[in-house]
């Protein structure tokens, strides 16, 4: 131990500044003595000193209140955060080393495309590892697509599966470089687990995002550093030290020795959970994710169904499933959103109480200060000091009063704010569904993208502006895929009105970053299951079991989208009316017969046979599948022909998909109803075609 340290008169009791200086000097000399050992020998605990906090936000994620978070968003204990802080320099060095190696590797690769195989841990291997990961994910995407999954779904599922494997590997396998001297190891062929090296700000494999987690997951995970000895024990999930471990070297730090370990491997450190977990905000986020996935799935099924002229059974089944799922997730989302709105209102109320308590405390201070100032023996310095404190307290008291007023006003308007928030939310969902439909349809029809781009650029044109909105000079903007609005107006206005007091800040916590537990969201089913699970959790945790889908079940959800199984033209004519016109002109008594029959059915006096009903339903489905592909005049001609065919022996209402396809083809060729009737021999071609263009 350095003499200067042991003999220093300043260390008993230790003064933070002296100890800090001493530690820094010894560290600078790099004499191999650890900070912990030195501090222990000095009879002090360095991590408990109230020393200035070093900024380590470049190393680990730090929130506004100075709390550290691990990569999954969980709180770090103060001990762990201090440990990271004390090793921040080594962590940074590791990052620099990594960057240097990568830079050298890139340079080398540019100069000569040599084969670096055999140099374990070299950057070439790292690139190769990323490449393998990318290839593995791509391969999985191809497999899923070959199973019938859409491009988008296959992409999402493959990536989710990949990250699940990474998570499982992290939980169940040794550390990334355990049992090896190499510092940065990558998995062998066909093994994507255990990818250890996410460096904040690192290039993502030449633009490939596949091998990296989302941006918000990579921050603060730069711990696997060159020449580090590991202390990761088998089964440990992350690089953070156990809760009770502050001594020694918890990470893979350059030049440090691994501290001896006695006893059994330690369990994962208990981690504090963010206060929002399982709260209304988190539940809403899960439900939002489920809804977003359902929208994508629904749009895909809807588009797929459009491709089938008569509507195949498989496509119909897929569509039905997607529709039901969308409805379910929509309800779930609305439930969670409503709960969040209510929770926000409660937070405002709680904030008001906290502000009042703080104000009372300040009032007490003010009284004491005023009393102190009445002391005739005060020095001039004391008078100045107390006066300044008094002014500060009075100012703060007044500011809090304003915040209480603002919060109270917010609370009194909360119902209006809820409605505004809900309108914003539902409008964004509506928008999202349509935008998803447009985008997927564009992918299937590249020429459509060109037309749509033209339409988007001409937003002032007649096509895409609502009639009423045009009248009030509000031109709608066609948007692409946008996130579902989940942040209420109430929250935003509240934040705008309030200051920075912690008590009030709690009311705005709901705008925190979105963090989803990916492990439960690997598939569409996973999304739904996750939402349901979350839902149950929330409901169980509710005191008195307050809310559970009471109102929303009766909603006409996403009307006009999910209940339109195929594209339909504007309802400018009634199909039944034209069927009637088609048949009544072929048979003089048909009109009366038809009217009588319809009345009898309507009154319940006549019950059509199941065969007739089924045939009619099939005909309607087949018609719906083609009507959207026809112009309005063609559609009218089609209905005239269908009316006629319904009375034609051998055909009747047996309107199969193939037949409807044939009729549509003839209409597209320019034939009218009479032409088709003649061609089919379905009676006299005497329909008054003036109704087609009227």
């Amino acid at each position, binding site marked *: 131990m350095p003499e200067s340290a042991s003999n220093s008169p300043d260390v008993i009791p230790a003064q933070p500044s002296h100890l800090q200086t001493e530690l820094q000097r010894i560290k600078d000399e790099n004499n191999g003595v650890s900070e912990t050992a030195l501090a222990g020998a000095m009879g002090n605990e360095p991590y408990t000193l109230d020393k200035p906090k070093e900024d380590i936000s470049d190393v680990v994620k730090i929130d506004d209140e100075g709390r550290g978070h691990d990569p999954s968003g969980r709180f770090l204990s103060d001990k762990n955060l201090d440990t990271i802080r004390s090793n921040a320099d080594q962590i940074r060095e590791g990052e620099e080393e990594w960057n240097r190696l990568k830079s050298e590797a890139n340079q080398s690769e540019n100069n000569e495309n040599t084969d670096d195989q055999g140099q374990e841990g070299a950057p070439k291997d790292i690139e190769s590892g990323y490449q393998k990961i990318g290839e593995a994910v791509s391969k999985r995407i191809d497999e899923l697509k070959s199973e019938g999954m859409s491009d988008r779904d296959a992409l999402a599922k493959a990536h989710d599966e990949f990250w699940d494997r990474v998570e499982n590997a992290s939980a169940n396998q040794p550390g990334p470089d355990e049992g090896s001297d190499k510092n940065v190891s990558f998995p062998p062929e066909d093994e994507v687990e255990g990818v250890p090296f996410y460096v904040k700000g690192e290039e993502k494999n030449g633009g490939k995002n596949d091998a990296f987690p989302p941006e918000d997951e990579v921050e603060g995970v730069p711990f696997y550093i060159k020449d580090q000895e590991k202390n990761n024990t088998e089964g440990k999930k992350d690089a953070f030290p156990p809760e009770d471990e502050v001594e020694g070297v918890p990470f893979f730090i350059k030049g440090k020795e691994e501290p001896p370990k006695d006893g059994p491997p330690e369990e994962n450190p208990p981690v504090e959970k963010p206060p929002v977990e399982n709260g209304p905000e988190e539940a809403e986020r899960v439900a939002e994710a489920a809804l977003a996935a359902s929208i994508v799935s629904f749009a895909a099924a809807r588009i797929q169904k*459009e491709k089938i002229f008569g509507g195949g059974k498989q496509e119909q089944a897929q569509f039905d499933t997607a529709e039901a799922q969308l409805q379910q997730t929509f309800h779930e989302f*609305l439930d969670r*959103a*409503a*709960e969040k*709105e*209510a929770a926000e*209102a*409660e937070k405002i*109320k709680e904030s008001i109480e906290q502000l009042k308590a703080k104000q009372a405390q300040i009032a007490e201070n003010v009284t004491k200060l005023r009393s102190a100032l009445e002391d005739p023996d005060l020095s001039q310095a004391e008078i100045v000091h107390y006066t300044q404190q008094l002014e500060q307290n009075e100012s703060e008291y007044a500011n809090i009063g304003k915040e209480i007023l603002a919060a109270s006003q917010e609370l009194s308007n909360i*119902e209006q704010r*809820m*409605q*505004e928030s*809900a*309108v*914003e939310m*539902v*409008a964004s969902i*509506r928008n999202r569904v*349509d*935008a998803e439909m447009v985008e997927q349809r*564009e992918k299937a*029809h590249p*020429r*459509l993208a060109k*037309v*749509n781009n033209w339409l988007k650029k*001409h937003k002032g*044109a*007649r*096509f*895409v*502006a*609502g*009639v*009423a*909105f045009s009248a*009030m000079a*509000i031109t*709608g903007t*066609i948007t692409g895929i946008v996130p579902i609005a989940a942040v209420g*107006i109430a929250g935003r206005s509240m934040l705008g009105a309030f200051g920075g007091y912690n008590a009030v800040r709690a009311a705005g916590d709901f705008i925190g970053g979105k963090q989803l537990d990916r492990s439960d969201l690997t598939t569409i089913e996973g999304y739904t299951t996750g939402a349901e699970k979350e839902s149950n959790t929330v409901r169980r945790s509710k005191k*008195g079991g*307050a809310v559970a889908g*009471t*109102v*929303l079940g*009766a*909603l*006409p*959800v996403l*009307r006009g989208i999910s209940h339109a199984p195929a594209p339909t*033209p*504007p*309802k*400018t004519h009634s199909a039944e009316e034209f069927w009637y016109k088609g048949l009544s002109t072929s048979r003089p008594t048909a009109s009366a017969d038809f009217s009588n029959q319809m009345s009898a059915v309507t009154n319940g006096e006549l019950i059509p046979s199941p065969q007739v009903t089924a045939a009619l339903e099939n005909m309607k489905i087949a018609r719906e599948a083609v009507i*959207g*592909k026809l112009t*309005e005049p063609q559609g009218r001609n089609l209905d005239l022909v269908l009316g006629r065919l319904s009375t034609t022996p051998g055909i009747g209402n047996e309107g199969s998909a193939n037949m409807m396809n044939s009729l549509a083809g003839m209409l597209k060729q320019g034939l009218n109803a009479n032409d088709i009737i003649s061609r089919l021999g379905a009676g006299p071609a005497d329909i008054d075609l003036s109704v087609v263009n009227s």
Partner: protein
Amino acid sequence: MSKEEIIKKLGLENSDPLTQQALLQQVSNSVSTRILNKLTELLSDEDLDKISSLIDTGNDVEVENYIMSKVPNFDIFKSQIEEETIDEIANNATSITEKAKESLSENLAE
């Protein structure tokens, strides 16, 4: 529908004018995106070919006329979509608020 009618339907009568305007803009965006969606459903491959060639010529009026010819009674078509969208948003938003109010009153009563 007039502006006042839409605002009333959406339950925004007591909102401040700026908020009303912002939300009307959002609903208008939804209407426009939905109209675009429905339009794309109505265009056949042949239509797309034709429109594409018209776009290339740079004649916006021709493009507009051609699309209009594919959707007779275009204003009715748009009005229906607009009304349907506003109704849907209004119904669902009101239901959310009702449920939130119910939840709030129950929780605050505890």
